[in-house]
């Protein structure tokens, strides 16, 4: 008999007991009773554990999915090419979800055909076969919510069998990657066996995670497309700006070329300092130079000889001579002033004053004669007519500058100019005639012959000297017509 004991006082707990005098049959019943209750209670506990375990497993899988998505979110940015996004996603799937193989099948054509484009966990033999694999999904994945969950008990359709065989994944989840309304691909991940022993190899929880991942790829893909569009626009705009920049640069170059031409032209007309002053101030103030050497040339017999030539031949021949004079003038740092007909005028000691203008101008005169001798030799050899040049120089004060606002030209004025002209007119062909003022400054460098006082038009008697040649120590040639480095060094060091 089973009896409920009555507590003797408030501190004694109630207890269920088997009466000491219970017979064996009763005792057996009591044991069976307790055994039944223990089993029920214990079973209920185990059942509760099972449910808790199942829920926790599910939560764990979902947590892993969230971790995976968070990882992808952190590691993938909008500028990443979609190929890299998929690569990283497949890697995360295999590592985090413990899948053995994962693959992205790209949509091809207009139907429901898909081809493997990216894969992870495949052996090289299978990867090499990727290019020849085409899977026809038909209506297997009709919309973005559809999926294939293939486990041991799943009914095997021809498509599933095809995927299992050719991708070598017996158990898998496959679902669409949709961009807008277009099914861009299929994400498939699977296992050879179950991760948790005796559990399904792939689960419904896995589908939820894979769906989130597919959504992530969709968004990343869309972002990548947007970014590509944006990038293309930026590239186009950049190209436009680049073209515009090149056009402006070319225009600037053209402008610079034109400016340079203008500048050169200006410098041909004006001394650099005067040109600069003119550009900066809009005017060039005439300036007084206490000492300058002025050189005039004139061709003896020009009028008679030119009468036998055409105008073009005259211009050509004159051009050759004046070009040679221009070279000489530049070599000796003189300033070309102008040409008047067959007369050439230049000066030393301006526009920047210097101390060597007289010897340099006389040396230039001798080298002009040397150039003319060479030109004449050519003419003689060709049995053609030629002319000689008379050269005269004088040294003294001048005023130099630009007068007027149109067709302006740098010019020099003063009695020194007139005297120099007289020196030229009183010279002879092939000779260099200088005044006493010039001689006083050049005597150490040249061998000169006094001609005595000669009447010059408007000047009366004027002492004149022929310059025979450079002294030998200053000559680069035997005739003493071309100055050497010693001359330039010595005469060039003369101070004002």
């Amino acid at each position, binding site marked *: 008999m089973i009896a409920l004991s009555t507590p003797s006082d408030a501190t004694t707990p109630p207890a269920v007991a088997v009466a000491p005098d219970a017979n064996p049959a009763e005792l057996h019943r009591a044991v069976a009773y307790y055994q039944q209750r223990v089993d029920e209670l*214990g079973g209920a506990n185990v059942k509760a554990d099972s449910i808790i375990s199942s829920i926790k497993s599910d939560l764990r899988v979902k947590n892993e999915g969230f971790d995976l998505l968070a990882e992808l979110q952190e590691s993938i940015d909008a500028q990443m090419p979609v190929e890299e996004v998929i690569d990283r996603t497949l890697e995360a799937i295999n590592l985090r979800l413990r899948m053995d193989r994962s693959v992205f099948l790209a949509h091809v054509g207009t139907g429901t055909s898909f081809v493997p484009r990216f894969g992870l966990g495949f052996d090289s033999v299978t990867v090499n076969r990727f290019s020849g694999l085409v899977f026809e999904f038909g209506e297997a994945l009709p919309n973005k919510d559809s999926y294939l969950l293939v486990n041991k008990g799943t009914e095997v359709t021809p498509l599933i069998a095809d995927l299992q065989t050719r991708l070598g994944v017996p158990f898998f989840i496959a679902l669409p990657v949709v961009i807008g309304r277009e099914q861009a691909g299929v994400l498939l991940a699977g296992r050879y066996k179950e991760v948790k022993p005796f559990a399904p190899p792939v689960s419904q929880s896995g589908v939820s995670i894979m769906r989130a991942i597919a959504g992530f790829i969709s968004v990343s893909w869309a972002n990548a497309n947007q970014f590509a569009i944006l990038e293309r626009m930026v590239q186009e705009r950049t190209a436009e700006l680049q073209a515009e920049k090149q056009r402006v640069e070319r225009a600037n170059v053209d402008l610079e070329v034109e400016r340079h031409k203008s500048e050169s032209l200006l410098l041909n007309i004006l001394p650099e300092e005067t040109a600069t002053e003119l550009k900066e101030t809009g005017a060039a103030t005439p300036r007084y130079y206490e000492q300058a050497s002025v050189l005039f040339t004139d061709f003896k017999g020009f009028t008679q000889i030119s009468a036998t030539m055409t105008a073009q031949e005259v211009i050509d021949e004159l051009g050759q001579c004046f070009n040679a004079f221009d070279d000489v003038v530049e070599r000796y740092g003189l300033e070309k002033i102008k040409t008047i007909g067959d007369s050439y005028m230049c000066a030393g000691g301006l526009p920047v004053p210097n101390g060597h203008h007289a010897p340099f101008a006389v040396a230039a005169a001798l080298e002009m004669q040397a150039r003319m001798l060479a030109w004449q030799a050519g003419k003689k050899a060709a049995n053609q007519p030629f002319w000689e040049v008379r050269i005269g120089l004088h040294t003294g004060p001048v005023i130099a500058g630009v007068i007027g606002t149109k067709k302006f030209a740098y010019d020099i004025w003063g009695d020194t100019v007139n005297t120099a002209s007289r020196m030229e007119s009183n010279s002879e062909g092939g000779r260099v005639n200088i005044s006493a003022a010039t001689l006083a400054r050049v005597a150490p460098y040249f061998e000169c012959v006094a001609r005595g006082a000669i009447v010059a038009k408007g000047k009366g008697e004027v002492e004149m000297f022929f310059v025979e040649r450079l002294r030998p120590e200053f000559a680069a040639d035997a005739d003493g017509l071309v100055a050497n480095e010693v001359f330039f060094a010595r005469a060039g060091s003369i101070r004002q």
Partner: protein
Amino acid sequence: MTSAGTGFSHRPDSYQAGHDAATRALAAAGLSTCDLALLLATSRHDLHQFVAGVRAVLGAAPRLLGTYAVGVITNAAMGYDGYQGGVAVLASSTVRAELFVQPDLAGREFACGQALAAALAGSEAGDANLLFFYDIINRASGRLQMNQGTALVAGMTAGFGPTGWPTASGAGIMGDMQFRLAHQWFDDEVLAGAVVGLALGGGARLHTTTLHGCQPSSAYHTVTKAEGSVILEIDHRPAAEVVAGIIGPDSGMGFEDYGWFITLGVNRGGDQWGDYQAENYTNRMCVGVDRKRQGLVMVEPDLVEGSRVQLMRRSFDFTYIHAEIQRLLADIAAQGRRPFLAFYIDCAGRAGAYSGNDEEDAHEVQKALGTIPLLGLYAGSEIGQLSTGAIAQFNWTGVLNIWSEPLA
């Protein structure tokens, strides 16, 4: 004086994983080289590459013993079913390591156990202690079979003879939960289907404790019909039907859910009616249901007719682990000894991913051991000592081993 350290790596490249784990182990021990290294790696690793990485750090001299594992545990890291690798290094002026190997375990579990025990008894380490790993995977016939730990233990018991077992523990190992072929290292030799063992002589002592994590949750029931590892009847009724009756018809669990969840315990202590004592129990895990015969397929074939079993409830509360380890450490200290290395054998089924538990029991072990160098593995079965001193194979259990040496 003995120095030890452990290192962990989860690098996918096997050479780098071995290199990293060995480098970290040496650094943790404050050593530049060592006498012995224990190696662990999951089946995702190439064993040859892994050991090459280890050798690159340790050199050719140290002896090596290791095995595949489902996962690896160290003081600061743990993981499973990935690219985990672990190394423990040990150098000592007093402690000597003896390594043992018995190949060709498949179908010869008893003989291998007997030979291993004889080899240990005849070695310099003698009856010091033993940690051994046996390959649980048997694919010799081409299909999956399990090497039987109970037969191995029985063979070892026979091998030790009247002198009995030294302090010992072991693990049935596999490299993953897919039951792929597993491997073991013995120095530079890579084996499969072998049992390997380690004994530390020279004053080292092994202390072990069993951390079951299960409690009886039913009355006693009796196995009345069994065939190999399949329990066909309990209390003269179909076994699966009995379990279903205990759990209840509305449990939501089908037979397919029984695998790796249903656990039966056997009280091997003296008093069947006394208070629950964890160290009296051996647990056996059900790995599936023979639907046709309504039988429970168990990991081991030792639940024979007459075995009294109870349905066991798994604990999700791991606080008992800390208390038990503190008790063990206090015991070691009371013996005037210093722990220098710990090795934890944890049931792979207890890992969070497989049990559904939020927590990892290995974390509790890590916390309780503090700075004592720890290496551990996730195993298919665990072998430890009952309160009676007998050695038994467990399931759903953790077996903690701590080696100690006398305080200087």
